[in-house]
């Protein structure tokens, strides 16, 4: 919120005020939409921001004898105050209003996403489980953004041809794939990733451009690794005296990030110098120039031989901008301005605008692919996490049976069926196998799988025995309240 979404909205707003025609495409997932709209989380975040403002104020006093640190403390104080103002006064705690505004104004195209970021190629043995993932994602999108999505961000860019039917059913026009989803397509596309391809059933696929990806993502030479940029891993939450920092970290007593960081990356050394925001901004500006120059060269090389102008698709995780790469939102802001003012080789465009302008697309079947390590499914299917699939498939199938068997449920039964559908969707999140493979919060991921499968099975048994325990159901409805209007009937279609 403080590092990515609010800074992005602030810069979008500045660009709009300054009359800069910019275009950006973002996915806002259903869980994120739901969290941004949640009263409890809104109140918590409001309190969090007020605490940050207090902490930054304390930091201004604490660092009074060190000008460099003091300037940074003042920067954080100013930023947190601005974030609070934007959050409370501009958007009334509803950041979604901001994103909706920029979409309606034509600057932003928001992509939908499968409901809980389910890894669809591995759920596809139950067709209705895939349809339900897409349906709930699209329904949430429509509810909050007041229109149907044109594109879908497939979880982990994971594509198999079998997804075409479900995507078409929900009127998804295009998806974005990892580069080899295009370059390995059949027949081999003429233009590689600089042109979209269209599948036999009419789903357009744009491919990630490798050169621009590398410029940003590479752990060796990527922009965010510049020594002048802010160091992510040095946070006062871990470094200052416990009694001083205690009120601002986790209530459980664990030290956590506060968002106040004073060091720059410096280099591959434990010794870290003090961060200088002005210098970092200057680096971002230079890198924006470099990015533009690289795109111009790329375009000039391929454009003369193409039927339509090339399109360079540059997808990144949103959290890279601001959270990992503190200067990322500023880099985007400068990049958009420089593209608008300083060159006339190319312009920013959203995928659907491109399709409207250049609707004739080479027909190829996109290749099976993901953007995970090694390009396929190993991250989400390996000996550490493979046990989950027999349970995910089983609950998907049983949900299908429930939806078929109880087509005209009485009200309590309907509530139980909806809750079953929520538990299926939550169990299917690709986060759980990802966390297990990443060896981060492994026990948590195992527990989430057990909980959602366990809750589903318990409720399904109650439905089948016609012995629904309303207290139990109410407890689950309170715990897992995402997708309040979930269309469980889709499992039975």
């Amino acid at each position: 919120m403080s590092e990515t979404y609010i800074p992005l909205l602030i810069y979008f707003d500045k660009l709009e005020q300054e009359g800069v025609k910019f275009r950006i495409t973002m996915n806002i997932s259903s869980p994120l939409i739901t969290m941004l709209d949640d009263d409890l989380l809104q109140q918590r975040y409001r309190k969090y921001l007020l605490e940050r403002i207090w902490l930054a104020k304390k930091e201004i006093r604490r660092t009074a004898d060190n000008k460099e640190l003091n300037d940074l403390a003042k920067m954080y104080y100013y930023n947190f105050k601005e974030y609070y103002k934007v959050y409370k006064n501009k958007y009334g705690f509803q950041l979604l209003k901001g994103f909706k505004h920029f979409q309606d104004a034509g600057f932003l195209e928001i992509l939908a996403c499968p409901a809980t970021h389910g890894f669809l190629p591995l759920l596809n043995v139950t067709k209705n489980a895939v349809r339900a993932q897409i349906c709930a994602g699209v329904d949430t999108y429509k509810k909050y953004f007041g229109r149907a999505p044109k594109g879908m961000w497939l979880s982990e860019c994971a594509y198999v041809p079998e997804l075409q039917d479900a995507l078409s059913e929900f009127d998804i026009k295009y998806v974005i794939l990892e580069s080899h989803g295009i370059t390995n397509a059949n027949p081999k596309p003429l233009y590689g990733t600089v042109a979209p391809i269209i599948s036999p059933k009419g789903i357009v696929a744009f491919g990630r451009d490798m050169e621009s990806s590398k410029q940003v993502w590479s752990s060796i030479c990527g922009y965010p690794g510049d020594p002048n940029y802010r160091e992510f891993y040095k946070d006062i939450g871990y470094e200052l005296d416990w009694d001083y920092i205690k009120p601002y970290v986790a209530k459980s007593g664990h030290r956590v990030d506060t968002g106040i960081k004073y060091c720059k990356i410096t280099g591959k050394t434990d010794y870290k110098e003090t961060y200088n925001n002005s210098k970092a901004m200057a680096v971002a500006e230079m890198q924006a120039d470099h990015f533009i120059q690289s795109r111009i060269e790329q375009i000039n090389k391929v454009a003369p031989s193409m039927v339509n102008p090339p399109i360079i698709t540059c997808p990144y995780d949103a959290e890279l901008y601001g959270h990992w790469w503190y200067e990322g939102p500023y880099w985007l802001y400068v990049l958009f301005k420089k593209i608008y003012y300083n060159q006339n080789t190319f312009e920013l465009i959203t995928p659907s605008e491109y399709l409207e302008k250049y609707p004739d697309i080479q027909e190829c079947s996109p290749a099976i692919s993901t953007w995970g390590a090694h390009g396929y499914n190993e991250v989400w299917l390996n000996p550490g996490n493979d046990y989950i699939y027999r349970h995910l498939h089983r609950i998907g199938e049983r949900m299908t049976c429930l939806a078929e068997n109880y087509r005209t449920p009485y009200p309590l039964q309907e509530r139980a069926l909806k809750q079953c559908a929520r538990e299926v969707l939550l169990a299917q999140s690709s986060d759980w196998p990802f966390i297990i493979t990443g060896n981060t919060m492994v026990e948590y991921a195992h527990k989430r799988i057990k909980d959602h499968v366990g809750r589903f099975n318990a409720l399904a048994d109650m439905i089948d025995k016609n012995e629904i325990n309303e207290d139990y159901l109410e407890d689950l409805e309170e715990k897992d309240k995402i997708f309040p209007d979930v269309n469980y009937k889709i499992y039975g279609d």
Partner: protein
Amino acid sequence: MLHNKSEYYELPIKYDETVVRLLVQSPKRMYVYWDISDQTIQEFSKKYFDYAKSTPILRIINLTKNYFYDIPIDPFANNYYIDVEDENCEYEVELGRTFHDKFADIYMSNHVTIPNSTPLPFENENEEILFKNYICLDTKKMRVNIPKQRLRQDYGDLPFGIEDNISSNSMK
């Protein structure tokens, strides 16, 4: 209100249903899991042979190239990773058991496609290329002027997009 009520669940060890499910891990490897119901075991014993004295087998079937081979598996195993030779092919796996050199099938898996891990060769070098209009979905063949040599050089015959250090997930 029972919110925050503590809950504890364990995953079922088996569901007593006969299933064989095949999943793709990569262009080189598939994953199969299975479960055999008590009823299936009884029926097998009645129909063929003493289930406990037969040997479980996975029959790997390449539907595209029309061949199969068998892998004997441990009677206690309920899942297996299968290395495959041929990319860009459809596969199925049949779970069965052998006894006295005979094979009896129990259950056939879903079928999967093992993808190609490298770009396919260019086709139709001198022919018209199929284009589809994304709005009306009409298709038409167009003769387009493509300096293929150059474009082919640009995106080469390497499986790009799969370098670890630029995968988004490696950053998290």
